[in-house]
């Protein structure tokens, strides 16, 4: 059971990632790309962790990707998730070239495989907060 008094863990919406979370709320995935070395910067920050350039440009990227790896969580550690098990915690590799921690939803946990093609699900988790889940690709 989720333990009373422990709110759902949600991201801070201001700061360096504000634009990322705002875009999710509008159904888009946006990340900064380094203009100098062309790397996508994840998590967002005001400079490129690869070359330290601060010349970044935000762009919309496709949500098409594959499950890089995953685990079916049967016992959660954060109290809020304790009555949500089993759920699929996963890392999805987007075609755009970045890997995102996420949850795979809208399928049986037993249907998830490494390499499974997935597509994004933008889900309003709380007032003003949209999270980026993934589900098996339908197209």
């Amino acid at each position, binding site marked *: 059971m989720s333990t009373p008094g422990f709110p759902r863990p949600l991201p801070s919406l201001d700061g360096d990632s504000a634009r990322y979370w705002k875009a999710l709320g509008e159904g888009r995935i946006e990340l900064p790309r380094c203009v100098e070395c062309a790397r996508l910067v994840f998590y967002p920050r005001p400079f490129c962790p690869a070359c330290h350039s601060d010349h970044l440009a935000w762009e919309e990227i496709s949500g098409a990707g594959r499950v890089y790896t995953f*685990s079916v969580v*049967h016992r959660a550690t954060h109290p809020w998730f304790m009555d949500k098990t089993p759920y699929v915690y996963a890392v999805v590799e987007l075609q755009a070239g970045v890997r995102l921690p996420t949850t795979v939803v809208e399928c049986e946990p037993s249907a998830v495989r490494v390499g499974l093609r997935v597509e994004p699900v933008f889900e309003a988790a709380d007032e003003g907060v949209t999270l980026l889940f993934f589900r098996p690709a339908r197209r």
Partner: protein
Amino acid sequence: MRSEAAIVGFSELAPTKKPEGQTPLGLIAEASRQAIDDAGLGATDVDGIVVCPAMMQYSMLWPSVVAEHLGLEPSYLDFVDLGGATSCAMIARAAAAVAQGRARNVLCVNGDTWDPKGMYLKPPPMVAPLRDFTLPYGAAGANADYAMAARLHMERYGTTERQLAKVAADQRTSALRNPLALFRDQPLTIDDVLASPVICDPLHKLEIVLPCTGAEAVVLTSAERARDRPHEPVWVLGYGEALAPDPFQREDFLVTPTVESSRRAFEMAGCGPHDVTLAQIYDCYTSAVLIELEDAGFCAKGEGGPFIEAHDLTYAGDFPLNTGGGMLSFGQPGLGGGMTLVVEAVRQLMTRAGDRQVERNDVAFVHGNGGTFTEECSLVLGRSS
């Protein structure tokens, strides 16, 4: 290269599942006094101290607080906070301080209590922007990350659950002969491990370390003093560190900085994996051992599963691994809990391991792994300088 620093004393307190009135500072003091005594030294001899965070008594100025409590006036103080790599990195810093002449006798001490609810009721402060991108999705502490490593390894290389479970089972065989281990009463078979509840698929409960209350301390000294000590010195032959934050953005999640940390340690020691006669490899999870064995060069990438299957990993086996039971059977007292692996290596090299003494105790490889294969520190210890 000749080693300039040696471990000459150690102590280890019996761990407990729940704190029984102890405080981290109290445990640290007890372990420290025992280790200094084991080294044949007195309080006034210790002029260097290396500590690590106590999660249940998190404090600013911790090195000074500990030194003050112990009545020390050191010329060298350090604080190491590298997750599971902490214990090995403490030894590395102490050895470097001795080699540089910054201190003659350096105490490295880890101690912590553990209250299962403590981390949520009163967590030590931590700022990590990446957490905003993991916790909302149900990141289950380190459990899910190490489970995802196991899953990817199985998928890519055909590693089996039974191979992973064998790590826990073999270590338990050694733990049965460790009077300090938390889990020392019952043998464990591979089937027992696989019959324990799945926590984060594919990892079972008995493949996951149990945090506990406990403490260890180790004393290092310089080459000229090392030979006059009560026990045979254990030489710090090599150490290496490597860090690569954010494991999922690097090219391959399963190729870890252990490759670099172990290469550096072996290069400094002037030897390689084939010279190692016993290994103490960070076992927060069975999957951690699997991947560290590969990246430290004991087998090729992808062959960790067959390696585990092919070797007897017990204290009496052909590849003695985590001969005190590892943290999986001993328990993990605090962030520096990997110190039990350091202490066990020293115990074996000093030929003080009693009825679990390994036959060939020339060179030990000790490894600490922190984060999700992000912070790595390797040590090579030996009986000859």
